[in-house]
């Protein structure tokens, strides 16, 4: 499903070039549950953004579903982001003027899901992350953990085949975190591919495979094939 070969992403800061990703190569097969770990600033979010087609690598080749990402048109990419990828951002990225329900509905609006069905699916998703009582709250009327769960509900409501989660349990207490992870397990069992970034060893342990990243390089691709 995901094939990366010699991916480089660098930021130019004045004189200096920072290699956020330094020739990264790895694969994720359909149905896998992969955890990406690594210290802060190691390039995890940068990698995730490239996987999610939100950003473009400077060098290297990235194939998504067997096709090179740079051969997709802008419109195709919008469609992929919309229907096939559920992206849970580290910074949530909810629209501040919309309430939880409307935020969760938004991707389905761009999918032209009929109103009634959209509403029902959004309500279901919010219920599953335990936000039944917060549907009409705007993001700034919710706690950090609630916003995070809202972002998770938004990603899951579209039933994407690839779920990309950047620190999905970072703001959650032990119990809620476990509930969310159980949800991921369930989705994985249904055949969805999951890539998850985490600092937490226990969380990482739940994945079938771990990819460790340090200073933009992959350290030990443990398990699975490269």
């Amino acid at each position: 499903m995901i094939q990366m070969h010699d991916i480089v992403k660098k930021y130019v800061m004045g004189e200096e070039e920072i290699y956020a990703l330094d020739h990264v190569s790895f694969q994720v097969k359909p149905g896998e549950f992969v955890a990406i770990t690594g210290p802060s600033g190691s390039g995890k979010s940068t990698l995730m953004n490239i996987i999610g087609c939100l950003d473009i690598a400077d060098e290297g080749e990235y194939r998504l579903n067997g096709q090179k990402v740079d051969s997709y048109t802008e419109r195709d990419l919008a469609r992929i982001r919309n229907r096939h990828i559920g992206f849970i951002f580290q910074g949530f990225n909810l629209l501040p003027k919309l309430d939880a329900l409307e935020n969760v509905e938004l991707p389905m609006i761009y999918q032209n899901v009929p109103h009634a069905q959209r509403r029902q699916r959004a309500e279901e998703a919010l219920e599953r992350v335990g936000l039944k009582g917060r549907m009409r709250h705007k993001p700034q009327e919710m706690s950090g953990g609630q916003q995070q769960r809202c972002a998770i509900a938004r990603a899951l409501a579209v039933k994407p085949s690839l779920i990309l989660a950047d620190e999905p349990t970072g703001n959650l207490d032990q119990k809620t975190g476990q509930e969310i992870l159980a949800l991921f397990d369930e989705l994985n069992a249904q055949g969805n591919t999951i890539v998850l970034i985490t600092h937490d060893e226990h969380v990482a342990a739940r994945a079938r495979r771990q990819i460790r990243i340090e200073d933009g390089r992959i350290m030990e691709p443990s398990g699975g094939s490269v």
Partner: protein
Amino acid sequence: MIIQSIKMAFKSIAGNKMRSFLTVLGVVIGVMAIVMLVAVAQGANSSVASSIEGLGTNLLTVSVRSTRYNPLSMEKLDELQQDASIAYVAPMLTTSGTAKAGVTTYTEGSIQGTTPEYAQIRNLTVATGRFLSQPDMDNRSKVVVLGSEAAQELFGTTRAVGETFTISGYTFTVVGVLESEGDSSTGSGDTQIILPFTLAERIFSQKGITSFYVSAASADEVTAAQTATTDYLDVLFDGDSDRYNVFNQTSMLETLNEATATLTMMLGGIAAISLLVGGIGIMNIMLVSVSERTREIGIRKAIGAARSNILSQFLIEALAVSLLGGLLGLVLAWGGLLILGPVLDMTLTISPQIALLAIGFSVFIGVVFGIYPANKASKLRPIEALRYEG
């Protein structure tokens, strides 16, 4: 998809009340200013034009600069009237004064000393009683003919024939009341207090004729009548053409049109500036909201909005806001003119071309500056838009 874009646009308008309000306000001010100012300029023009036209079509107005010796007398006017192109000539002595009937005083009256011919020249119709007659002239009778409003104000009725009142201590008897002209824009028609010229000359101690009306025998003979009058006065004043002025309506209207064209240009200029200021306001708000909106666009793109989704939402948003502002501005201008019309005593109407122009301009500004940043932001990679800091 369009319906979704419309819904999203309206949600966004409602969700950003302050921004929407300020944008609408910018358009409202621009549209209101230009529509109202142009209406006032045009109203001023047509109200003066209609009062000139109200004077009668074959009319010449002559004014004479009064010096110690004024050779112009009633006899000379009779002589002038003999010309074939001229139907009637009537002298005019205009003054103002307070009329008193018992405890009632009336100061608005326009006191006019003239001759019986004046009725023909101005097409005056007597509602009750009679107009001035030749014996009134010869005897300097203290009789008056009243405009309907003057009669109403003095006696509380237009059936005032036989009533008496005083001006400057002289007592007058009403012999006739004119039919109402009902034209408020000319104003003076119904407030006339008409008395024999010979009497007015004596009471108001004016000697000689300083102003008179000439009516041409027909509309075709206006030019001939003007030439005859000018020639006659030229002889009378020994070729000193500075001492008299002969106006005909056409030249008066031309002068007026020149004056009001300048006025319209000036007001139009002021209005154009307000429109521009309104436009800059819209521009400002649209551009200031760019950083917030760029993040919004980043989020929308990240969850799968295509560029076309984003552009149609922003286009509809800009269109809706500026059209709403335009229509609101138009309605407010209309209301404003309804109030202003009676105050200025003018007929104020909205010019459709100007309204279209004003709304078109505001919508253009709104759409251009609504779409321009959105278009730029929608071209960014989602991650760039998300990181945008302004």
